[in-house]
């Protein structure tokens, strides 16, 4: 049963990711990315990390992608047909790039093929309590630094998007 779910969500994730590349209009790419994010959250639940799964949906699919969709709608772009003509000289690189990428994938696959087929016996709870206990004792300094990082990113985004600096 778990294997059926794994294959379903894995196929959905890979299909949505490929759809991100294939679509001409960037709004359809963002919507495919949202599908990919929710299927990765489902895979997190299969890995017993349910807190991280809902956090992934809230932060990534519910906030970051809404930002992307807003910007795309506000800029009101058509599917740009002039993209094809401009870059003739780089077109042939695609035929080297994609096989090279598949070769890299086979290399990674061969490396991890024999990793950890033994099932783990200790079930680790992925609850908020387990993450909180580690985050607020051992990783407190990175936690505070990330809050500073978000503050700086917030100020940077406001400054960049202003019309008159």
């Amino acid at each position, binding site marked *: 049963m778990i294997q059926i779910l794994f294959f379903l969500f894995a196929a959905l994730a890979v299909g949505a990711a490929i759809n991100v*590349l294939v679509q001409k209009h960037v709004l359809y790419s963002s919507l495919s990315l949202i599908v990919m994010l929710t299927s990765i959250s489902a895979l997190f639940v299969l890995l017993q990390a349910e807190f*991280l799964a809902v956090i992934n949906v809230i932060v990534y699919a519910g906030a*970051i992608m809404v930002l992307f969709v807003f*910007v795309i709608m506000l800029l009101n772009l058509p599917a740009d047909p002039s*993209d094809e003509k401009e870059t003739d000289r780089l077109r042939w690189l695609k035929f080297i790039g994609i096989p090279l990428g598949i070769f890299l*994938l086979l290399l990674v696959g061969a490396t991890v093929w024999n990793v950890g087929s033994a099932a783990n016996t200790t079930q680790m709870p992925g609850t908020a309590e387990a993450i909180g206990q580690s985050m607020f004792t051992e990783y407190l300094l990175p936690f505070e630094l990330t809050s500073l*990082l978000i503050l700086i990113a917030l100020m940077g985004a406001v400054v960049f998007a202003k019309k008159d600096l």
Partner: protein
Amino acid sequence: MIPLNWYLILAAVLFLVGVLGFFLKRNIIALLLSVEIMLNAVNLTFVAFSSQHAQIRGQIFVFFVLVVAAAEAAVGLALVIAMFRNRESLNVDRSNLLKW
């Protein structure tokens, strides 16, 4: 029970899709989306390893990756808006004024 290497290979495939998208797309928002695909593949790897070794450390690191991705997406989109205002196009090949 799903072996660990299935998750790792799935994450590698997603990472490959993200890398290909980053190299082959011209639209700058599509480039940002490909970076998000790569980050999600890395998140999947971290959580798979954290579940295998029963340590919470992998999930904590995913938290930090999520925070950095949020900050990067916000600033990146602000830059896209500023770039679009000056050039009226989202094609990255039009922003090559410093190229020799």
